């Protein structure tokens, strides 16, 4: 594992990092529920921004040679025009190893045949389409503009351009959504024959205007949360998808390699505004600003224990779980036994993983596993008259 040299403390200067994230914070309009950094419009700033990203990449020098995955996220990377995107990608992919996974997130409405061709030509071999929902009413409730049919057209354009790895992102738990609505979304998604499906439960910030506006509906969909999950897991598995991470499903072999690397705790570098990087025990974030190069970085240093906790938390979100020995020292044995006995956790072949039932309560399971071990009571403890010297 690339982070096995964590302990030597020599990670301040990144060695070979295999995974690169690039944040492109441009959007047609801001979505009410999204809390990633992005700006509506401002496309005039895009060329300078791309330059800044490339400069930042250059700063890392050889550390970025031999990349195994590149992920363009946003924002809406495909808001950039094909030429600019192509220029940036060619500079970055020039440093990738053969067979690298190069993903671009895309808003379906932006993927006309020209964009599809441009992506393909620039070496992108995986596209993740932010569909969210095919249902016009639910899209409106999300504050999401755009034609629900655009996803079909985008997928067709991508196929035309030779893209053979397409992922569709859906959101569930939308105000006003029923189980049947979700089922229809899933069916319409599969009709486009994607290789990968991500299903995210809508997460609304506590106290946000969006939450205030949809309070009642959100309570309703919130109470259905576990049924939404059951429905989508059952259906997608039946259709031959593998539930490899809490919110992610893939045809065999089509798991997103970039995200999987993150979840395995591997080092990654993020370029651009608001992008996070993690190398060894160091984690930092660029400022959320188009002029991020001038802004100040937030940085933190994890303790070994925190790093191990993350290994557990992220590992248990994955079907394959986590290598037991990697996390054994922070696990509360009593809680582990309790979770195993009650069918939430399984231990097999040197790994522990959550069962299907356990995966839906991963937070609670982790919080329990991370409990400090109860210290044994010191011998003279207890009643009556323990240690008392007076009468």
């Amino acid at each position: 594992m690339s982070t096995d040299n964590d302990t030597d403390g020599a990670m301040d200067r990144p060695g070979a990092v295999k995974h690169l994230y690039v944040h492109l914070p441009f959007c047609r309009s801001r979505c009410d529920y999204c809390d990633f950094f992005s700006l509506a419009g401002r496309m005039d700033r895009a060329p300078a921004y791309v330059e800044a990203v490339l400069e930042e990449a250059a700063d890392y020098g050889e550390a970025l040679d031999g990349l195994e995955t590149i992920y363009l996220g946003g924002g809406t990377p495909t808001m950039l025009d094909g030429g600019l995107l192509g220029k940036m990608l060619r500079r970055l992919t020039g440093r990738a190893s053969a067979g690298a996974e190069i993903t671009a997130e895309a808003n379906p409405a932006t993927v006309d045949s020209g964009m599809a061709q441009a992506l393909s030509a620039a070496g992108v071999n995986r596209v993740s389409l932010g569909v969210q929902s095919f249902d016009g009413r639910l899209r409106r409730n999300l504050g999401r503009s755009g034609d629900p049919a655009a996803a079909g057209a985008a997928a067709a354009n991508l196929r035309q351009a030779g893209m053979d790895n397409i992922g569709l992102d859906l959101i569930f738990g939308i105000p006003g959504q029923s189980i049947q609505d979700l089922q229809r979304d899933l069916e319409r998604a599969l009709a486009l024959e994607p290789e990968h499906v991500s299903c995210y439960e809508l997460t609304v910030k506590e106290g946000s205007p969006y939450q205030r506006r949809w309070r009642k509906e959100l309570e309703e969909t919130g109470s259905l949360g576990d049924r939404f999950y059951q429905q989508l897991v059952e259906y997608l598995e039946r259709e031959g998808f593998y539930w490899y991470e809490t919110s992610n499903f893939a045809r065999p072999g089509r798991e997103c390699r970039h995200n999987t690397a993150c979840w395995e705790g591997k080092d990654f570098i993020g370029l651009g505004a608001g992008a996070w990087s993690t190398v060894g025990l160091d984690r930092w974030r660029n400022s959320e600003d188009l002029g991020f190069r001038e802004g100040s970085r937030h940085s933190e240093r994890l303790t070994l224990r925190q790093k191990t906790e993350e290994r557990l938390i992220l590992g248990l979100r994955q079907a394959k779980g986590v290598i037991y020995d990697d996390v054994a020292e922070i696990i509360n044995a009593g809680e582990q036994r309790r979770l195993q006995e009650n069918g939430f956790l399984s231990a097999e072949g040197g790994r522990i993983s959550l069962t299907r039932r356990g995966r839906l309560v991963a937070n609670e399971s982790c919080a329990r596993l991370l409990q400090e071990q109860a210290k044994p009571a010191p011998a003279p403890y207890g009643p009556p008259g323990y240690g008392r010297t007076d009468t």
Partner: protein
Amino acid sequence: MTGQSLIRNFSIIAHIDHGKSTLADRILEVTNTVSGRDITEQMLDTMDLERERGITIKAQAARVLHQASDGRTYMLHLIDTPGHVDFSYEVSRSLAACEGALLVVDAAQGIQAQTLANTYLAIDNNLEIVPVLNKIDLPAAEPDRVAEEVSELFGLDPGDVLRVSAKTGEGVREVLDAIVSRIPPPSGDPDAPGRAVIFDSIYDQYRGVIAYVRVVDGSFRKGEAIRAMAMGTKVEIEEVGIFSPDMLPADTLSAGEVGYIITGIKTVRDLRVGDTLTSGFSPAVKALPGYREAKPMVFCGLFPIDGDDYPVLRDALDKLKLNDASLNFEPETSRALGFGFRTGFLGLLHMDIVRERLEREYGLDLLATVPNVEYRIVRTDGSEITVRSPADMPDPGEIELVREPYVRASILLPGDFVGAVMEVCQERRGEFEDMQYLSSNRVQLRYLLPLSEIVLEFFDMLKSRTRGYASLDYEMSDYRESDLIKLDILIAGDPVDALSLIVHRDKAYYRGKGMVERLRKEIPRQLFEVAIQAAIGKKVVARETIPAKRKDVLAKCYGGDITRKRKLIERQKEGKKRMKQVGNVEIPQKAFLAVLDIDKK
């Protein structure tokens, strides 16, 4: 040394917020005892807790010099006393140290039950009452009406009722003059063997116990051997002094004077409030009257949230006990809560104060179980036991009868609310004794009530049913037989000892139902379905179910989110620390107090 004719000793009787501490501050200021710039609010309340809550917990004293209109300078001793019913014994001792009392009444609110009770106490102790209406500067003040009420109540001349604003200082000099002219001087025998009543005692970690005393006969000086007559403690005086209001050493304390006596004694238990100090060489024959041992009335289990804190809690209680002779505790083990102490208190305020001090001054995180009173149980074999914890209640088959403490309660309220309050008392198993109109719209209701019914938010309920106008006072009556049973709460099939209650049979169903409903709301969903039952013996009287938590997982977890998500799960983990794990179930602390709220609905 001042002749007794120039000494006046007085205390101030007032309801909370009626301005006792402000008036005391003003007296210190007007007499130049404390210079203006040294004045802080509530000068005599030295504990943070006292200042925050606006109450007096420990008695304090101050000597002030006042030049009266006759041109002579008088030595006035003000003894500031606690005002709450929990501390009525301390109040009685402070009163015993005085010849007079200022009765301070809010000119807008009129007299309250506590004040009434304490004033009667003062009258019983032959104190001269000087009535003072405070807050006459308030727009809502009705000095004429309240003056009439006060004078009617205690048979005073309405013309004698002084009117002041402690806030502005108006009328404060007149109060001082009245103290001199109306309150008689002390009348002890300066040549008799020394006798002094201890009206409070505090423990100071450097100086040991400091007894606050009023010398009745004779005198006391440094180096003298003395004896506490009730406790038999013999000790030598290290220092005597007066309160100015800070402690100021003096050569002697003579008959009529108020001051302090420092000995090397290490616990207030040896120099208790109410005890009489006398000379070790030529002791007085008779102690001053009125001493009794302060006995705890309510009990609760105190458990450290973190079991490792048990020794810290023990040491902290030991320390508080040095300064609080009424605090009483013994080790207790709960299956649910681990090791802690069953702790006895004078009342709920006392309990609250002790708990808050333990948490604040000793950094403890505590869980207090529902308070209960002390029961006397006669077993079928004829033996009698005292039960201070539901856990100690014998099996129903072994119980011949149960007795519980009753109090005689006096409730003062506006006439309009009599019906509502009688209903509350009825619900609380009260026995009506009598009703009396103190003035045209002011009624005194007297009820005999089980103490246990008062312990749990009776007062809050009284307040809410009378829009805050009722006030309550009570005194112990006797033990009476009641049909009491133990109500158990089972969580996931296991009885949780810390949630057991002793209740009247007629209320068992109602309480049980309330408890399980309340617990269902307080206990968060767990990974497993959890049954909550209330049972009397083997018979389940109420049941609720907490469905299992079926989904608890974050949607997205990518690059930058990781720190945030880790923290979220860490918080979830930390949250568990504030829960008590009982079997498979995590119970939040506040669930253990759920029972307190049942009657609020």
